[in-house]
Structures are given as structure tokens and as C-alpha cells.
């Protein structure tokens, strides 16, 4: 009897020792994802500006993503060329008028890029783009006469902007498509920043913009799409940067065995075909990177390299149709080619 009692006593002591351990074990059983984690990302998908937008934020108030969506809708309503009620559509119909602060701001920045790139970006190319059917998808090849008549009216210098008042030149129409998403990204990141968010990633139809680093302090890994396939040409590790790519591969049509891509040379009104197949621009301001990626694509390899040497506010990655990669100095260490581009020859463009 005494032995049995002692046995129970030992068991009791043993169990009392094991109990705290058990509690710890049980607590450890709660797996990641079972409990809401304040550091977990919140995401939203928004269909706007004729594309799909993915927003990812870490932290911030509950209403942040719906505020972000509302901001996107507001900007879309102002900038859209396809919505007849937008400020831009109204301007294109009447040729002159007052626009809101956002439209004035994005026009001012866009005209700045037009000037800085010597018209390689030109926001008045829209009527030519429309004649090719790139805006509505009803692709066709315009006649030479039609083209020369339309191209004669393409000139960003005839657009005047004073305060919020815009006047277009005779027969001109503007399209903010080359900068609207970049501007929207800048506005979204400001919204997140003001709400106390220090880590966010947005992908607006392929335009990537990052706020801070990932929550663990590591860099965002932004892939550059392979213009010739479905994978990536490489991965750029970055923080606090916009990474914006232009390439003819996103919208094009084929006729009589020739491929016509949607980026037009504003001087000729004809799709650019200069050996570049993708231009990625990385910098602090999305709106600038967006406009520059189109302008550099139009410039071609050599002029783009020269332009970069004369600038200090962006870096770039160029991919050519003969399988070469050109990277500006600032991205030399952070861009890693991948997939079929892993073995491609890389030229680093440096300041002289």
C-alpha cells in the first residue's frame, strides 16, 4: 500500500514538472496563420485603368486599402481617354479648359519628360495611336497620307499649361497613358506613407513601386518579365524604388508577316523597331520612371545610354533583340539575369 501511494506521489510530482512544458508545447502548436498577425500583409486587387492592380501593405489602418481603391478610381476618372466623362476626354473634345490638381500635376510632369527627352516621349501622339487601333484593339495599318497628316499635328510644345488651365494646339489630343500609372503609384505610396506604413508593394498592370523594404528588412525581389517568353529575364533587388518596364511585347498585332508594336516613334508615327525589346527604369519617382521608360524605348540603345549618362535620377536595364543586356552602373550589383537570359552578355553602362 505504501509503495503504491509513493508511486502516485512521484507521478504527481513528475506531472507537475511536465505541466509547464506541456503548456509551452501547446502554445507552440498554434501554427503561423492560425492567429491574425499584425505584421501580415493585406492585399487588394483592383481592376482599373484598363488593367489589374495588386496592392500589398504591411500594417496601417483598417480602411487603408479601400481608401487606396477610392484614390485609384478618382484618378482613373480624371485621366481616362476612353471614358467620355473624364477631364482628359473633355479637354480633347474642347481643346482648352481647366483641369483638376491631379490632372494638372501629371500633365506638368509629362510635359517635363517630353522636353527633357527632346520629344521622344510625346503625349500628343494619341490621334496616331488611335489610327493604328492600339487604343481600342481594332488594329489596322493607316495609309501614308493619313499618317503624315496626323503626325504633322503631333508636337507637345503646342500644349500650354498655366496653373490648372490647359490649351491644346489645333487638332491635338493628349493621352496620359505613358505616365498615369506611375503617377497613381506615387500617390498610393504617399497615402500609405502618411498612414504610417513603412512597407508596401504595388503592381499597377506591370508597373512596380515599392515603399521601404520588406517587413524583415530584406530587399524586394522585382523580376523583369522576359519579353520573349513567359518567365523572367532577371531579378532586381530593391527598396523605395519604382521599377517600370516598357516593351512592345505587351500590345501588338501581326499583318502580312510583320509585327506592329504599340510604342510609336512620335516623329514618324510608325511603331518603334530599333533593336530594343524591353526597357526597365528604376528610380524614386514612378511618374518619371514611367514616362522615361517609353522615351528610352523610342530612343534606342545608344541614345538611351547617352541620355542616362546625362541624368542622375534613374537607372535602367535594356534588353535587345539579339539577346544582350545593358545595365546602368547603379544596378550592376543588384540585377541578376535569370532564365534564358542568365547566360546573356551583360554590358554595364558607366558615367564617363
Amino acid at each position, binding site marked *: 500500500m505504501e509503495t503504491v501511494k509513493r508511486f502516485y506521489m512521484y507521478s504527481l510530482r513528475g506531472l*507537475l514538472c511536465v505541466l509547464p512544458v506541456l503548456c509551452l508545447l*501547446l502554445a507552440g*502548436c498554434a501554427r503561423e496563420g492560425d492567429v491574425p498577425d499584425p505584421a501580415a500583409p493585406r492585399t487588394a*486587387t483592383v481592376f482599373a485603368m484598363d488593367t489589374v492592380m495588386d496592392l500589398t501593405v504591411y500594417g496601417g489602418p483598417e480602411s487603408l486599402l479601400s481608401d487606396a481603391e477610392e484614390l485609384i478610381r478618382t484618378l482613373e476618372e480624371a485621366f481616362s481617354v476612353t471614358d467620355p466623362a473624364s477631364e482628359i476626354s473633355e479637354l480633347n473634345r474642347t481643346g482648352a479648359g481647366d483641369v483638376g490638381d491631379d490632372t494638372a500635376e501629371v500633365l506638368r510632369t509629362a510635359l517635363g519628360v517630353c522636353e527633357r527627352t527632346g520629344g521622344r516621349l510625346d503625349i500628343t501622339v494619341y490621334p496616331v495611336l488611335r489610327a493604328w487601333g492600339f487604343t481600342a*484593339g481594332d488594329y489596322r495599318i493607316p495609309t501614308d497620307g493619313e499618317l503624315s497628316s496626323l503626325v504633322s499635328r503631333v508636337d507637345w510644345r503646342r500644349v500650354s499649361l498655366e496653373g490648372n488651365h490647359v490649351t491644346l494646339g489645333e487638332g491635338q489630343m493628349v493621352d496620359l497613358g505613358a505616365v498615369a500609372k506611375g503617377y497613381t503609384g506615387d500617390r498610393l505610396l504617399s497615402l500609405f506613407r502618411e498612414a504610417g506604413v513603412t512597407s508596401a508593394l504595388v503592381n499597377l498592370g506591370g508597373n512596380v513601386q515599392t515603399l521601404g523594404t520588406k517587413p524583415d528588412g530584406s530587399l524586394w525581389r*522585382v523580376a*523583369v*518579365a522576359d519579353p520573349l517568353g513567359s518567365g523572367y529575364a532577371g531579378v532586381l533587388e530593391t527598396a523605395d524604388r519604382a521599377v517600370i518596364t516598357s516593351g512592345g511585347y505587351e500590345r501588338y498585332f501581326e499583318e502580312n508577316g510583320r509585327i506592329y508594336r504599340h510604342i510609336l516613334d512620335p516623329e514618324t508615327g510608325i511603331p518603334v523597331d530599333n533593336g530594343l525589346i524591353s526597357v526597365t527604369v528604376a528610380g524614386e519617382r514612378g511618374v518619371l520612371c514611367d514616362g522615361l521608360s517609353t522615351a528610352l524605348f523610342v530612343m534606342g540603345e545608344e541614345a538611351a545610354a547617352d541620355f542616362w549618362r546625362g541624368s542622375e535620377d534613374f537607372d535602367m536595364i535594356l534588353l535587345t533583340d539579339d539577346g544582350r543586356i545593358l545595365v546602368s552602373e547603379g544596378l550592376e550589383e543588384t540585377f541578376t539575369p535569370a532564365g534564358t537570359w542568365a547566360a546573356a552578355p551583360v554590358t554595364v553602362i558607366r558615367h564617363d
Partner: protein
Amino acid sequence: MIKTKTWVLILGALLLTALLSCLILYTRPAPGTVANIYRDGVPVRSVDLSLVTEPWEFTLSDERGANVIRVEPGRIAVIDADCPDRICVEAGWLSDSASPIVCLPHRLVIRIEKNAAAEGDPVPDTVSR
């Protein structure tokens, strides 16, 4: 006073429960490669691709049209659709989280959510295009 024997029984039962619950929690299938399908940004279907052994297909349709989706071990694709651009079909197979399949006309997105356990994996966070 409660008998020592009773204490032992209670604690024993507790131990058993603890062990059992741990066993259940740990043997539950680990979150693998899960493909989530969204319509208008709202999740409508979820497929754990790591549990797929035999390929199968299903169709998602609404008033905008239909997308035929094929699931194979570890990957998913839209193999047919009646949308005008068929970009979702041309997108091919999706097996990582970097770039979703999007059918803009049907407002459909197929996305593989990043597995939290796959820290430091080589899959990019997003794709610039």
C-alpha cells in the same frame, strides 16, 4: 481533500489531450502551393496544388463568359476561354507566386499565394512588365 489518485487521473487526461491535440495540429496537411481564384477581386475558389495527384478540369462562368481551368500536380492554367483577347490562355502554366494569370475581360485572377514558410526562396515578389 481530493485523492492523489484523482489528481493523477486529471493530469494524465490533460497530458493525453495535449499530446492528441498536438498530434492533430502537426499532422494536418501543411499549407503547400495553394492557387486562389478571384472574381472582381473576391476569392471564389481555392485549390491546394500540392495535394493534386490526378489532373482535373473545371469551368468558371458568369454573365461575362467562361474560363476552363486545368489543375495538375503543382500547377494550374486556363486552357480555354471565350474572352476576346485570350491572354489568360496564352499565359500558360502558373506554378509560383510572382505573376498571376489575369483575364481582364472576365475580371478573373488566378494567383498562387506566397507560402510563409518558403522564406528566402528564389521566387520574386512581383514582376515588372
